[in-house]
């Protein structure tokens, strides 16, 4: 039911999550809401895809195999070519400490799962609007 034309000027979202059902669910809803979506299953894949395809925004789960979300975000923010991409941390772990660590790693926003698809899309739109208003230095 993807009715929106996927033109090159629609924002590209990279969704990083090792849990397939959640990843595909958010991808499906993002496409339904008019975004182009690429997926990654861990931090290493996320780095690779971010460097290759330069998405407009990255939704990053934090607890990931191979390379976790904090490390991936740190590396993205160290790399000049990917530094400007906003990263929204997605965490299912509600114990305290995660949000501050995510912030320390360089995440631009933080969302706690469970998060309904429409709430996540709203957050994506909010962050993208904020970035457009204050262009990267």
């Amino acid at each position, binding site marked *: 039911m993807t009715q929106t034309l996927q033109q090159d000027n629609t924002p590209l979202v990279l969704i990083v999550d090792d849990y397939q059902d959640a990843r595909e669910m958010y991808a499906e*809803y993002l496409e339904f809401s008019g975004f182009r979506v690429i997926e990654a299953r861990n931090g290493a894949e996320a780095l690779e895809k971010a460097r290759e395809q330069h998405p407009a925004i990255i939704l990053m789960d934090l607890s990931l195999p191979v390379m976790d979300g904090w490390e991936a975000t740190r590396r993205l923010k160290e790399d000049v070519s990917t530094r400007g991409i906003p990263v929204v941390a997605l965490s299912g772990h509600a114990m305290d400490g995660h949000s501050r660590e995510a912030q320390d790693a360089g995440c631009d926003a933080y969302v706690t799962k469970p998060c309904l698809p429409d709430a996540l899309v709203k957050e994506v739109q909010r962050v993208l609007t904020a970035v457009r208003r204050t262009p990267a230095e």
Partner: protein
Amino acid sequence: MPSTAVLSSPATPAPEARLALAELLLGSDEARVCARATVDWLVRNARVGQTLCLAPDDTDANHFSALASHDVQGAERYTLSLHDAAHPLAAVLHQPEPRWLPAGQVPPELPLGRTGLLAVPLGQPDPETPAAGLLLVAAPTPEPIPDVRWVARHLGTHLARLHKGRQLKRLEAASTELAARVNAATEELATQNELLRRQAFQLEQACAAKSQFLANMSHELRTPLNAMLGYTNMLLQGVSGELSAPQRRSLVRIDSNGHHLLQIINEILDITRIEAGRMPLHLSDFRIPELIQEVLSELDPIIVRSKLAVSTALAAELPVIHGDRQKVKQIVVNLLANALKFTHEGSIQVLARYDAADESVDISVEDTGIGIAPRHQEMIFEDFQQVDSSPTRPYGGTGLGLSICRRLATMIDGQVTLKSALGQGSTFTLHLPRRARPT
């Protein structure tokens, strides 16, 4: 040898015999043996008749029993009680001199013949130190019997020394036993302390493990729940096409039950975080009216469904609050959600007022619901407790909501109080200081 020849001369038999007795006494540690030897010596050397040597029991100084005797019937069974200070023999115990009692004054209980009696204190008594015993010798006249005084003094000194020795031994034994008991008790105490310390450590670890387990569990539970709620939400939004009315109704039910399950998991997680001290304070300035507005819009779907009249009554001059906004909001959401759950008709009012005197704010939720009986009013603030926790209870929920509210309120220096009567509605009030103390 000349000196020996002098001592053993038949004209002066006493000094030699005295020496022999003195040596005999020194050689014995038994009071009874000493007394026996003394009495025998007297009979042989001083030619006395009936003789009775009495000494106090080790346990009772006023209770005399026979140590040795001569020619006295039933002497070994005889005991003399001196508890009566007026007893004729009681006085002798504190006198250095012997006393002669004529036949008529001899205490009738003494198993002696009915002649006069010479009572001789053993040792060197004085008003503070009584005699070590008594030597009673039958004597028809008050004339002194040679050697009796010397013998009595000598035996007395010896008996007193033996008595002191026995006391010392007993004292030493008691002291040793006491030391052993103290050691045993100290050891026991140390063992118990160590045990307690280990148990405390194990409890601490078990508690930490429990918190970690619950945190992990809640994560594991919420991951699939996230997908379930997400897909349901997408279907309801028509992402996969239009829905028929029955499909929509089923999905709405999946959605509301999923949210209920999520709330239960979240509440358990909250308790865990509070218990583990992992719910830090985030202090900021905020306004009450905005906060209450947010609470109302968050619960709007439930308010609309309830058909109750929900209103607010906020005081005109509410100050800016410095505190943990998120926690205040969580408490008010919880109180209002409870009011909506337990009120079937009537109204709910959210009130806020400021007390300038003690710089505190009261946020109250007043309902016309089922009310709470006095005996349940404290219980409902405890973990997992509801007025009716039975399997057939009419109201669902975890029974954790108010427990969380109370804990959160404590964290922000506030408190949650309740006024209610069965069938007459309830008023829950969050009382909090205008400025929370930073921790």
